[in-house]
């Protein structure tokens, strides 16, 4: 009987895999398992592991009955839509304009579009905070010139959401523009030429020829926006650090942070994090079913 060999290449493949596996286990698998363990325990983190008692599904029941959790989930979804829809409409328009008007300079335009994305969220949020100041902000000054305002951008329940959505939109529209631009640049020129020969120009060409070709990228980009929106933290945390008036700007991520690190309820916060994960995955699956296959075809 001959001993079984792991692979014809010996241990080499495993050595090549080792760095990834090690990092994956350390920074993904262990925290994931740890958070699952925590989700079924309750106690103040300051008391240590010994102070965290097993409580079964209690944390999940608490999350289900906590009005603030549902409120924060509603805020998160609303902000995702308020920031996401205009962000993609803007990106689609911008990418088409860059593609058709700028020619070789489109590379530079893409670089400029990426600037808000690579700039520190904290720095951007602080600038927005100054711009949106009720008393001294530039936006209200401009509004005053046309006889409007002042608008309480950061304290009114609705306007604070609009402000956060505008900030998120401004930050990520460029990133999506670059995604769409890449997809446009991959389109075969013959397709657009054929459309032009057939008499499809302007808006008709864009709607009936270009947009359907962009479908895979639109679905991918909007899925990324959906995931990012569900995890929204920085922008709302800076513009409304205490959650805003009547907690109208409290996102679920910000609430989890508060629950875990201010109130010391790691178990409750982790259970909510799992619920957020489940909600996000459900949303994405539903979204893929809706837009990735069925509805788009029917519309087209």
């Amino acid at each position, binding site marked *: 009987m001959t001993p079984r060999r792991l692979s014809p290449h010996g241990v080499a493949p495993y050595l090549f895999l080792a760095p990834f596996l090690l990092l994956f286990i350390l920074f993904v698998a262990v925290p994931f398992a740890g958070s699952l363990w925590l989700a079924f325990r309750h106690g103040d983190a*300051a008391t240590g592991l010994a102070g965290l008692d097993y409580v079964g599904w209690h944390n999940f029941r*608490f999350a289900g009955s*906590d009005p603030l959790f549902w409120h924060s989930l509603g805020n998160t979804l609303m902000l995702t839509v308020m920031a996401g829809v205009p962000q993609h409409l803007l990106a689609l328009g911008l990418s088409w304009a860059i593609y058709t008007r700028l020619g070789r300079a489109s590379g530079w335009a893409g670089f400029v579009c990426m600037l808000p994305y690579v700039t520190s969220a904290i720095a951007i949020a602080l600038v927005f905070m100054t711009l949106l100041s009720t*008393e001294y902000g530039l936006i209200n000054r401009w509004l005053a010139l046309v006889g409007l305002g002042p608008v309480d951008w950061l304290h009114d329940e609705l306007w604070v959401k609009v402000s956060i959505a505008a900030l998120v939109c401004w930050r990520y529209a460029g990133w999506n523009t670059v995604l769409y631009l890449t997809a446009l640049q991959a389109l075969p020129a013959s397709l657009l030429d054929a459309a032009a020969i057939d008499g499809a120009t302007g808006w008709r060409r864009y709607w009936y020829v270009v947009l359907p070709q962009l479908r895979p990228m639109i679905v991918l980009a909007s899925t990324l926006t959906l995931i990012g929106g569900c995890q929204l933290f920085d922008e709302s945390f800076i513009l409304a650090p205490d959650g805003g008036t009547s907690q109208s700007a409290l996102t679920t991520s910000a609430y989890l942070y508060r629950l875990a*690190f201010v109130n010391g309820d790691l178990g409750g916060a982790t259970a909510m994090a799992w619920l957020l994960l489940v909600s996000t995955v459900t949303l994405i699956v539903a979204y893929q079913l809706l837009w990735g296959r069925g509805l788009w075809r029917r519309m087209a």
Partner: protein
Amino acid sequence: MKRCLQAPIAACALALLSSAALAQNLTVAVFPKLDEAVKLALPVWQQRHPDIPVRLVTLGYADHHNRLATQLAGSTGAPDVVGIESTYLGRFKAAGVLENLAMTPYHANRLEAQFVHYAYTQATARNGAVYALPADVGPGTLFYRKDLFDKAGINEADLTGSWASLLDAGRKLKARSGLYLLANAHDMKNLYLRAAAEEGEGLYFDQAGRPLVESPRFVRAFELARTVRREGLDAKISPWTNEWAAMLRSGKIAAVGSGSWFAGQLSSWVAPDTAGKWRAAQLPAHRFAAWGGSFYAIPKRAANKALAWEFIQLLTTDPKTQLATMRAPALQALPALVTALRDPYVDTPMPFFGGQPARQLWRHAALATPASPLDRNDPVAEELVNAALDAVLFKDKDIRAALRDARTQIEQRIRR
């Protein structure tokens, strides 16, 4: 051959031992500003223990306390001395991760009379345990712009005589100068909630941990806040934002209720150019309130408890160290040590307050402030009470209904 090796081996062993001795140090974990206080004590410590350096670990205010939450419960790596701000002290006391300083060999309860009553009491538990020693105190103060109130014909007695007179002063100020009395109606709620708490009554909970949010104190605080908002006496802005600082600088907001520590913030970065225009006054209706303060404690898992205790005593019971923290321009911390509070320096005029010896006022307030116990769930209650007030201010919800809902939610959160 063996002899040849003996000398180098002995030298190596000696070097290793001495490096091990050198490696012994005292780790002190604090938040910004408090690190300055620790630095002031270092020369004395180095004279006493030249062989034991102090390793100072400073993190941002929230980060420091968040880190402590996990660090103190861990099996290794706990600092020897930790600085804790009063907002967080209730939680750490309840977690059982701090050394009981009333026990042997510390006997900190012997030091009780040396400290400001309310601060010492906040560091203790009902069973007599002492979990920390107070370093500085922040008695509640009404900071106001004298120049603006003078212009509107309002004097300090009008401002602080009673809660009604404070509102009247705000109305006059608004009518005559168009200025705001306060930054936010929440400030009025906070001012009253703190000032009206009696000895032994927690800010949000009684000593048995039951929420007090439906008590007349909360109803009155909400009524005052609602009046401020309805009559346009507040600027409707959030404190500690750029806009808030700008309005304080430009004189659009005329008064701020806060702890005495706010004097340092006001004169250093909030509104340094307004020097001479501000004054400090006692809280309205001749009330006194605890409004922040810092403490030092020893974690149960600290490695050098004896040295840590010696260092804490140097920081808190040595009058020279305590006075140095009060004199340091970057700190201006009001000592928790009574002998330091009685130093003649307290009577010196403060240029930022137009020559007013404001520290005298703070000394009086610190010594008269009733002890309000800290509860580990204070941050939870604060968050839900603020949301309840928002519902009253923005949605015109009935005050008692809002407080009833807040109580239900607090109970739901703390009884888990």
